[in-house]
């Protein structure tokens, strides 16, 4: 009996401390939250308006949507506050790993697969890259005559192999020409194939 009466206050103390700890844990983000609206976002999380996230994301494409959502959620959905925060040079806080907004998770698969090809198309196509636009048009207008005339120098070298020159600059030019020919030939073939299968333009 005596042992039990000692245990009950201990149990209560543990419960109290535990409750305070949990309470402190949930309310601790508030003090550094800019002091806008406290309390409303602690217990139940108000969903962030996706339109607002979009608005901020368009202004600051470098920010992660998750960070934006976190900030909006914490300041009670004020786009202005988030904007000012970013413009003020204060970076957005990194949300805790437990923060998993539904909008983000549902939109993640759609945004991850198709744009994976878009951000990578920073690469110019080969025609732009090697400045071949003029050569394409000359080929189209008059068969292969301009190309073959420029090949006159190559053909000398082609007697011995594909044209290794003892001269450094010449080598460089020959390599350049081989690259261009390879690209133009591939493009020509593709165009021929397109003409052949002109019916199914769907692709």
């Amino acid at each position, binding site marked *: 009996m005596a042992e039990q009466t000692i245990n009950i206050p201990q149990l209560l103390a543990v419960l109290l401390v535990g409750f305070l700890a949990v309470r402190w844990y949930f309310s601790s983000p508030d003090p550094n939250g800019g002091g806008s609206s406290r309390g409303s976002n602690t217990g139940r999380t108000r969903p962030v308006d996706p339109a607002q996230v979009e608005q901020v994301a368009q202004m600051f494409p470098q920010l992660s949507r998750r960070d934006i959502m976190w900030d909006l959620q914490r300041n009670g959905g004020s786009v202005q506050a988030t904007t000012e925060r970013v413009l003020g040079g204060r970076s957005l806080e990194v949300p805790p790993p437990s923060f998993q907004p539904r909008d983000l998770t549902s939109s993640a698969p759609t945004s991850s697969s198709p744009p*994976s*090809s878009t951000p990578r198309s920073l690469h110019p196509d080969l025609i732009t890259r090697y400045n071949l636009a003029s050569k394409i048009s000359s080929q189209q207008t008059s068969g292969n005559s301009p190309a073959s005339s420029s090949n006159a120098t190559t053909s000398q070298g082609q007697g*011995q*192999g594909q044209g290794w020159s003892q001269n*450094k600059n010449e080598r460089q030019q020959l390599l350049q020409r081989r690259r261009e020919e390879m690209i133009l030939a591939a493009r020509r073939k593709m165009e021929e194939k397109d003409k052949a299968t002109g019916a199914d333009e769907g*692709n």
Partner: protein
Amino acid sequence: MTSSVASKRLFQEYRTLTNNPPDGITAGPVSEDDIFVWEALIQGPEDTPFALGVFPAELKFPRDYPLSPPSMKFTCDMWHPNVYPNGNVCISILHPPGDDPNHYESASERWSPIQSVEKILISVMSMLAEPNDESPANVDAARMWREKRGEYERIVRDNVRKGLGL
């Protein structure tokens, strides 16, 4: 010392590749002033969605080449299970021997000084035709290759056309 060995070897490989270029491969230093940086063009293998495509890549050689392998990075849109989204190529011949703790690759597949730029480029060409599904570099592409082959091929074909400016 070592770097002069490397540049001699690279120069010799450049000459071989110029005199006897393998089908569908053009490669050489971007500028001979720096023989440690090459550019290669690889043609897409026929009867694959990469067919008719020409894919540029950059090869960077270490100063101790051929002891260490070069790195290779496609400088075009390349949607392939074994090519990282940034273009880096992940293929066993580019891995130094003894580098693979998982033993996916046997030592003979990996880099050694008896390999060459030509062998790398030919390996990459056949990699385009036959992706290696183990340890993919581009997980999304690998999954698509496995599960939605049609979509995968469509992206590849689109990239081929884009690359040719069509």
